[in-house]
């Protein structure tokens, strides 16, 4: 366990955390403002990646395809909202689960139908390829730095947007008490649509950004969906700040756990036992974290005010 490996993994964890935040931000807003369980948020992430690959196939330039994919995922999110989700606000959570589970099935399979089951790739743009030296003998890819930087920028922008614009104020108010906001004369339906489309675009953006470094395949959204749910539950539903901290926490713990849990366990256990238990414990670590957080604070770390 060298220090350089640790630093690299720390950055990897940070990068995973940033991606998780982008997915979880939309999820927590949709959840907090509309009280809507959107299991289909993960497939929007997947769709973002696929759209980026497709747009790259058309245009051949990275940045244009990112823009196109963002636009397309925004439109797709709005379309889904219009066709399905709009009719499920205020209904039982169970019906929302049923509908969004159906959408997961449809889109996962639809993607397989359109692009095939084989994983796709997208090249890293020349501008962001290569790596930068971190310490002596330690280089880190520029693209991953770019992901972290973009993610932090988006997070900061989102924070400013939510805390100091009128729409952001309405979103916060909606997360606290949607009925009251509606009673004060705000068109809550339109607010919902805006939030939903925006959330879908953020998830799509996360998908677009990972398209060059992960393989783009059907079902890639399912795992991140579960992680994003863990994040928003730890962070407290409806809270952007909570989502950010929890996302970074989950990303770092998951990544570090996967790389070092076995080594750490060797200090206390026999090597063979450590090799067996280590990976399982590493995979479980974030769920353990969530169980502990919920056992101590049943509404997460930073519950939106006014929600018990």
């Amino acid at each position, binding site marked *: 366990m060298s220090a350089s490996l640790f630093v690299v993994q720390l950055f990897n964890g940070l990068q995973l955390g940033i991606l998780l935040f982008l997915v979880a931000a939309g999820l927590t807003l949709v959840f907090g403002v509309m009280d809507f369980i959107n299991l289909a948020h993960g497939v929007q992430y997947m769709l973002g990646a696929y759209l980026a690959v497709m747009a790259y196939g058309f245009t051949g330039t990275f940045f244009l395809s990112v823009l196109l994919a963002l636009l397309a995922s925004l439109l797709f999110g709005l379309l889904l909202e219009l066709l399905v989700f709009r009719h499920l606000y205020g209904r039982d959570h*169970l019906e929302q689960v049923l*509908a969004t589970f159906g*959408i997961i099935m449809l889109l996962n399979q639809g993607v397989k139908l359109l692009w095939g089951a084989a994983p796709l790739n997208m090249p890293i743009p020349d501008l962001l390829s290569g790596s930068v030296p971190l310490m002596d003998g330690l280089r880190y890819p520029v693209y991953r730095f770019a992901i972290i930087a973009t993610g932090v920028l988006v997070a900061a922008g989102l924070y400013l947007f939510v805390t100091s614009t009128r729409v952001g104020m309405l979103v916060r108010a909606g997360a606290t008490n949607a009925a009251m906001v509606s009673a004060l004369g705000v068109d809550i339906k339109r607010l919902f649509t805006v939030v939903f489309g925006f959330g879908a675009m953020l998830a799509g953006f996360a998908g677009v950004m990972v398209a060059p470094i992960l393989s783009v395949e059907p079902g890639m959204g399912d795992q991140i969906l579960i992680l994003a749910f863990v994040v928003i539950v730890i962070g407290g539903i409806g809270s952007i700040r909570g989502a950010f901290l929890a996302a970074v926490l989950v990303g770092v713990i998951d990544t570090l756990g996967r790389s070092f849990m076995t080594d750490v366990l060797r200090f206390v256990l026999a090597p063979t036992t450590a090799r067996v238990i280590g990976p399982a414990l590493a995979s479980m670590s974030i769920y353990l974290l969530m169980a502990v957080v919920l*056992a101590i604070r049943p509404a997460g770390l930073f519950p939106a005010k006014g929600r018990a």
Partner: protein
Amino acid sequence: MPAAMRGIPAASPSAPRALSFDQRLAAGLFALLAFLPLLSRSIASSYLLLVGERAVIFAIAALSLELLIGAGGLVSFGHAAFLGIGAYAAGIVASHGLGTLCIALPAALTASAVFALATGAIAVRTRGVYFIMITLAFAQMAFFIATSLAPYGGDDGLSWPTRTMVLGRHILKDQLTFFYVCLALLIATYLGVGRLIASRFGRVLRGLKDNETRMQAIGFTPYLYRLTAYVIAGTLCGLAGFLLGNQAEFVSPAYMHWQRSGELIIMVLLGGTGTLYGPMLGALAFLLLEEALSRLTEHWKVILGPALVLTALFASGGIAGAIAACRRRREAAARAPLTLPRLVRHLLGAGLERSRSCRRAGRRLFLRPAHLCKRVAEKARAACAPAKMALGRGRQALASLAERGLKTTVERWWRR
């Protein structure tokens, strides 16, 4: 949804009484299932029976989940963990050569109950979405533990040496026996869960779902009731897992995958929560749909997905909800005022009756137009009676108004 609970009768000490609609439907379902082996033999396909076995086993799991969702309002997104734990416990015992009923079954049930108790003790403290997520978290932990069980197959899963033996004999190896054992256990589960939901315990549980504060105010401790329900449901699902492992003679971590938990919820919702026949029908419908559609096309999920979305959008309450709505509509129709389609139907019925009575009397049927016209007029008059009455009243009022008007005009003229 308290109204949906109507299907479950309140516990009453009175001895035999007529079966409720819910119970009649369930009995019909069991009877149909009991004939499945006959059907599968007649078309010479043991595959049908295999699908039937899976459906029956998943119906048990769906019933146990319904106890949580329908009665307790606890939406567990980790229920599949118990399927896996039941199957793993029995499989591990079997791989050590102890695969007899009196060891494997208690092992499966105890393991599920212990897991339910340990996780439920934390999970039940939370509400709503947090409960959904924490049950998911525990199921994921169980999933990852299973993948790391290297001595028992790890990722690849564990093949059982053989099905569970009963008194040292391979009774469950026989497909027919196994099917009927599963069916008997399903019926037992149905009766047991039905009694439980109708009992005092079940009523407290339903009361907690409807209004927790009020139940606390009259002195109930929500935590204990919910935890008990969680442990019972987990143990029942462990039973289903035991059967599932026996059926496949195999268990893998995939049994506990979160999508499997999702599918269990989907089964309950597709069938309709709030009744007991609903989840069973849902499990059957889901597995049969999956089977039928996957024969139709490799991309069957493209069909099933939108079907689920449409169910959520338009058929809230699932199959049971649709059946209940259909019954309500029929009852309402019996009281509804006369409309043209109903008139036509009524006339057709009258014609049929007349033809029958004619035939009985040995006469030929003469459906004279005049007769028909008379009946139509009769019916129409009956249907129009309220309208006519209103019209008559209106005419009267009009007439009196006109009369008064005329009078005043005449008076005015007179005065002039």
